[in-house]
């Protein structure tokens, strides 16, 4: 009866019927909940006994899926996996009664059990999440089914559900990043557009390195990517269809060069910088009608525009005050309001998907920082510091920021890093070569 459901991977997610597991009555204990508001100091310990192979030959896949789920959770810095060597017992089978006392004894606060069945090129993953100290299951058990080549996505989906149930916030593991893959020395750098899973797996290249490519930006649905290309000999904006990898140049307002594009949330408009006579201003182009609107008009450099999630405002950088600073204006242009007032220079602002914060690059005293501030410029918080950090992008849940880092000197190299918005958990993202200008796509369906 499940075989039908196994055929389509996307969105095949069904609640399992109760398998008759005896649920231990909840004790007088706060339900399991990790509140992220002020940052978590101590990671939540969880146990994840390797998922069981329900069908002979599924053992490797079961081990791989278990590993990726654990890596996702550990990678947040909010969860900490308990070594299996300290387990007192393991469940006899998926759905067998849980000996909560055995898990409490090793201080596992969450327990994740699961089973994997591989049939030909089809795989089914089932899992359950338990709140050990309450002795109760957290939410229903779920099943994901699809083709075996989607096994990493299924693992990410399990981890997203666990993350979401424990933190009360949406996950971000089943998402992709488009970025610029970099190879070669500093004075002969080859750049290609690449797309990968959020954790650096499954890298695919979208362009060759025959022309410089810069700063790709996903649409909100992840179906298209805007980027800057020197294919024509001059910087111009291309629109790339992710499914077909077909690309075409965006017809902008007339100008010498165009760069720094971003989609509106509905994907119908593009805001970008246009250079005319050496002067850089911000424009908007409606993709359906081709109508162009000039949004800024000063002799200063206005660039790096980013829409608020509700589409009503645009944050951007301008050096009209003499140095790069951040400004917010109406999506239709008009008088902007300066929001950055600290020491140093502020650039590349990006509105968070929740709408509450703006991430930016800050330059001060020869160092670069990635930081966040509220949308009115208050509560500035620097998250990183290095020789050169730049180009932040938000995880779809607004909890994590990815950015590019370049090291100093003649042998300087580039890499992608991620950091929690609390400033904790700085990590290098594993990519096959150097990387810059990441853009984090949406949570996939």
């Amino acid at each position, binding site marked *: 009866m499940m075989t039908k459901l196994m055929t389509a991977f996307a969105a095949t997610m069904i609640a399992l019927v109760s398998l008759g597991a005896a649920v231990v009555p909840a004790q007088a204990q706060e339900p399991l909940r990790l509140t992220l508001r002020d940052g978590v100091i101590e990671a939540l310990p969880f146990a994840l006994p390797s998922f069981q192979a329900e069908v002979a030959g599924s053992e490797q896949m079961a081990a791989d899926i278990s590993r990726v789920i654990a890596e996702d959770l550990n990678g947040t810095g909010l969860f900490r996996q308990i070594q299996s060597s300290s387990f007192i017992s393991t469940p006899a089978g998926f759905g067998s009664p849980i000996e909560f006392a055995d898990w409490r004894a090793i201080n596992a606060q969450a327990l994740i059990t699961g089973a994997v069945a591989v049939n030909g090129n089809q795989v089914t993953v089932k899992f359950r999440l338990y709140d050990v100290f309450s002795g109760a299951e957290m939410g229903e058990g779920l099943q994901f089914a699809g083709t075996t080549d989607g096994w990493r996505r299924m693992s990410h989906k399990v981890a997203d559900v666990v993350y979401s149930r424990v933190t009360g916030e949406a996950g971000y593991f089943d998402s992709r990043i488009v970025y610029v893959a970099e190879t070669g*020395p*500093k*004075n*002969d*750098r080859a*750049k290609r557009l690449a797309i990968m899973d959020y954790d650096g797996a499954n890298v695919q290249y979208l362009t060759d390195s025959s022309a*410089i490519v*810069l*700063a790709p930006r996903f649409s909100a649905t992840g179906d298209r990517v805007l980027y800057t290309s020197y294919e024509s*000999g*001059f*910087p111009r904006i291309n629109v790339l269809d992710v499914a077909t990898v077909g690309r075409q140049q965006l017809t902008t307002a007339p100008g*010498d*060069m165009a*760069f*720094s594009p971003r989609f509106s949330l509905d994907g119908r408009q593009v805001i970008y*910088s246009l*250079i005319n*006579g*050496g*002067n*850089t201003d911000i424009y908007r182009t409606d993709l359906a009608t081709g109508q162009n609107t000039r949004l800024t008009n000063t002799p200063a*450099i206005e*660039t*790096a525009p980013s829409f608020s999630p509700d589409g009503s405002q645009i944050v951007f*950088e301008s*050096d009209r005050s003499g140095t*790069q600073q951040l400004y917010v204006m109406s999506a239709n242009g008009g008088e902007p309001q300066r929001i950055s007032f600290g020491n140093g220079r502020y*650039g*590349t602002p990006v509105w968070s998907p929740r709408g509450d914060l703006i991430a930016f*690059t800050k*330059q001060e005293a*020869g160092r670069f920082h990635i930081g966040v501030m509220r949308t009115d410029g208050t509560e500035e918080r620097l998250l990183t510091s290095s*020789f*050169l950090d*730049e*180009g932040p992008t938000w995880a779809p849940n607004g909890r994590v920021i990815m950015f590019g880092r*370049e090291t*100093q*000197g*003649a042998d*300087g190299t580039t890499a992608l890093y991620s950091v929690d918005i609390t400033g904790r958990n700085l990590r290098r993202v594993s990519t096959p070569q150097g990387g*810059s*200008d990441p853009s984090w796509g949406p949570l996939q369906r």
Partner: protein
Amino acid sequence: MKHFIKAALVIGALSLSACTNADRFDNADAVDLNAQNGLNAANDINQTGLGGANDPASPQFFSQTIGDRVLFEVDTSTLTAAGRATLDGQAGWLATNSDYLAVIEGHADEQGTREYNLALGARRANAVREYLVSKGLAASRIRTVSYGKERPLEVCSAESCYAQNRRAVTIISIGQNS
């Protein structure tokens, strides 16, 4: 015929310097070339096609003797006195060699965000373009492009390198006056 020779010179210079450096009329490359020509003088059949640095109408003369680039102070696009002197030479050369077109490449050092540096490189390229136009050159002969910090010439992370990277380079080519 005259055009054909010039075109051959340009193509030769392009293909040779392109092997080692993205910056097409890089001085260091040109010096290497001359040295090689000296060593291989006996059997290098192409030598006469390349040794144009003494020919005032040659691209080599433009890039080496006049100077194809001007440098800028940190975060500025204001032409220096030395820069203006170089551009006076460029303007004179382009006025004489009226079948050449120019593309001005603006560049920035690595200190700064990518977008800002792209815009800054455009300011620098435009400052050169405006100066050349003010010296009487037709605006239609001069285009600008900015590479921001994407094409550094020198790779160290120190002012000695940054100073060379904050530049605007005039790239000349035989034009199709269309």
